[in-house]
């Protein structure tokens, strides 16, 4: 497998964006039948490089060679023609369309004047079987899970005859179960002779499936290593340039009085169902409470109720004894609740605003940022500069629109803003989704530092490692209720996994 011929070669690729060199003379070889991982910090330039291969960006310098022939990728069409497919980080699927319609879009088989939907569906069923993808061609995209949607993306590339498939952080949005299945599918794809370029921040996945790994640091290629000859620690060190701690140091918690008290909380979801079904919970100052669970078991609604984004049906939410229910996000924020949202694009940032404007999104109206009814730009810029420095936010400047920043740096900006507010309660939902190991370490340290400052921290995560690593107390949420409580010292992945699947502690609920 390691001696397959070279199907794709990048030679000296350079790409500049205003104020930054995203790719600096990067070279890389992809062999037939290999899974080639790309590893690098947030903002290192991985997505940029892959977008160049897929023809979405044009390189400023450098050559792309396909099977030894130099080729100009002047658009996704050209890439598809060349047998290159890409599964994007944000899926490119039309929600109200069926699986079949999404797959054939742009390459529709015809019958007479019309589309041959039947023929297409059977062809898709065939492909689905060949690669063990198991997708239902008739289902609508909006009604299938994220994992399934991703398979549809894979099918799209296969339907177009892709020989090389690029995956940009495919596992960031998946549940652990779905991740295992995806890795299986990838192995199956290379067994069938496809070649894969895989971007991921999860070293475990690289160790599991990749044959080789190319490491990029700040736009420069560091080296390509054979995965069998290395280990996670070495990879991480090469990526960030110094040793990385996987387990965050923390002293035992020193919890004080109870700070957040929730009693019999009921919250309904959009579909009218009870998403949070009579939950009670207290968090004390100086402790981190982690809520584990599979996505969609009411975690989102619980958090939205606490942060005033969603009305509550019944029950009470008290912060330091004062009622905060029926609030708005503004009142929740002013009561001392900070929130690192799960979807940073939707709830965390205004993407077309710059760094400084986003830094004061929750405080722009305060006196310190106002001067005779006008915004005090200087005061705002000072705050932004401070955030950038303290939290090592990599950006060309504080007037860069956050849309152009990498996901990791966007996240750091949110965390900076939320922590700087000096909250009493810090809520973090999936705070490290899409972050590199260095950034994850950083975020975890920040959460624990807040705890040590006597704040209450509520962490919601689908990742067991994160929950076990950071929490002092763990609650497992299933179907809108807590089905178990444990501590990181006494629990195991297995126990949490069972609880998350709805197997009740004590086993009486089967």
């Amino acid at each position: 497998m390691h001696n397959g011929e070279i199907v794709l070669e990048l030679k000296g690729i350079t790409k500049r964006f205003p104020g930054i060199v995203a790719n600096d003379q990067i070279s890389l070889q992809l062999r037939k039948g290999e899974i080639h991982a790309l590893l690098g910090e947030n903002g290192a330039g991985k997505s940029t490089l892959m977008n160049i291969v897929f023809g979405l960006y044009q390189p400023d310098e450098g050559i792309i060679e396909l099977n030894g022939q130099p080729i100009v990728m002047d658009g996704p069409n050209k890439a598809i023609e060349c047998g290159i497919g890409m599964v994007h980080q944000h899926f490119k699927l039309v929600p109200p369309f069926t699986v079949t319609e999404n797959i054939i879009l742009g390459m529709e088989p015809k019958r007479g004047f019309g589309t041959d939907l039947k023929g297409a569906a059977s062809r898709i069923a065939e492909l689905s079987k060949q690669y063990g993808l198991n997708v239902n061609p008739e289902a609508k995209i909006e009604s299938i899970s994220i994992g399934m949607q991703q398979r549809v993306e894979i099918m799209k590339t296969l339907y177009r005859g892709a020989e090389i498939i690029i995956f940009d952080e495919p596992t960031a949005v998946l549940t652990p179960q779905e991740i295992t299945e995806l890795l299986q599918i990838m192995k199956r794809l290379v067994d069938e002779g496809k070649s894969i370029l895989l971007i991921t921040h999860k070293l475990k996945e690289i160790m599991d499936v990749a044959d080789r790994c190319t490491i990029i640091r700040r736009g420069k290629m560091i080296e390509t290593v054979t995965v069998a000859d290395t280990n996670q620690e070495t990879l991480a060190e090469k990526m960030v340039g110094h040793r990385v701690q996987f387990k965050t140091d923390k002293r035992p918690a020193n919890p004080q009085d109870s700070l957040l008290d929730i009693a019999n909380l009921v919250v309904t979801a959009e579909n009218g169902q009870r998403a949070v079904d009579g939950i009670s919970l207290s968090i004390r100052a100086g402790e981190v409470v982690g809520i584990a669970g599979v996505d969609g078991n009411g975690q989102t609604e619980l958090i939205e109720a606490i942060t005033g984004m969603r009305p509550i049906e019944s029950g009470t939410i008290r912060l330091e004894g004062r009622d905060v229910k029926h609030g708005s996000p503004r009142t929740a924020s002013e009561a001392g609740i900070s929130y690192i949202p799960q979807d940073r694009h939707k709830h965390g940032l205004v993407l077309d605003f710059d760094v400084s404007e986003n830094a004061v999104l929750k405080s722009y109206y305060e006196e310190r940022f106002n001067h005779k009814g006008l915004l005090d730009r200087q005061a705002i810029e000072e705050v932004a500069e401070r955030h950038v420095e303290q939290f090592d936010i990599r950006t060309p400047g504080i007037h860069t629109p956050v849309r152009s920043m990498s996901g990791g740096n966007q996240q750091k900006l949110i965390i900076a803003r939320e922590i700087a507010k000096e909250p009493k309660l810090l809520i973090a939902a999936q705070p490290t989704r899409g972050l590199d190991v260095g950034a994850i370490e950083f975020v975890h340290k920040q959460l624990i530092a807040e705890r040590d400052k006597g704040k209450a921290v509520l962490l919601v995560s689908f990742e067991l490692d994160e929950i076990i690593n950071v929490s002092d107390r763990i609650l497992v949420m299933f179907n809108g209720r807590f089905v178990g409580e444990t501590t990181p010292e006494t629990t195991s992945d297995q126990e949490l996994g069972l609880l998350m699947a709805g197997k009740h502690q004590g086993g009486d609920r089967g």
Partner: protein
Amino acid sequence: MEILGFLINGTLVFATALIFAALGGLIAERSGVINLGLEGFMVSGAFSSAVTAYYAEQAGLGAAAPWLGCLAALVFTVIFSGIHVIASVRFKANQVISGIVVNMLAASSTFFMVKLLFDGAADTPVITNVFHRIHIPWLSDIPFLGKALFQTYPTTYIAFILVIIVYYVMFKTPLGLRMRAVGEHPGAADTAGVNVNRLRAWSVMVGGSIAALGGATIALTANSSFAFNTISGQGYIALAAVIFGRWHPVGAMGAALFFGFAQALKDQVQLYEFARAIPTEVFYMLPYVLTLIALIFTVGKGSSPAALGQPYEPGKR
């Protein structure tokens, strides 16, 4: 019974123009471009068809005149739909504003051209060779139904046939699939190899010309001429029909029939004794008031194309 027949027939006649315009609007909006310019396209269609039919008549072309008028409407309106395309698709300007500008431009320029062509007159001379009601053999002899449904203008029949065609293209052909994809999620269409902006440009222009036919039918049936107030807001009603019909050709047709009914009702009601006491202006308000009410009850934007109004920027992350 007699009255009901008149009412149904009137509904069909008034709905015809709205159906054309609504279909045209729907084609553009399904591809993601807000089409407030419908009014302008209808004005342009009414103007160009009336002028062409008039000169064709002068040239002795007789019965061919209205058909040539329609052809002219199709072609001439590309000027206005082209402006909308250049502004809102090519240069990514605000689609609402671009549409309003098109409307104002169409209203003022056609008014000006009428003055220029007809020695300062405010409207075109009356055209005699316009569309006439055709009686479909056999069917029109059916009692009641025959009079109601099968004694009307050829353009009315064309409008209904067009509904079927648009439905088929939109939902059964590759072209329709691409159009809808571009309106829902242009990024998905682009990465699947569909040229988003080209498809949007075509949709706006084809839609604009179809809407122009709506204007032409008004000028060449009921009015037999063109003046600045020939269209008077029908384009906006057609846009309401698109929304009321939830961006579906059959739905839009239904909505157009409803609004057509409101207009027919206006004419019928005025024949009654009790109506004399009410100022006619009140009846003229009727279709617009009903439009407003209908729109209030169609809240819930669930069915509008997801990318409606958003210019496509490929690099956007």
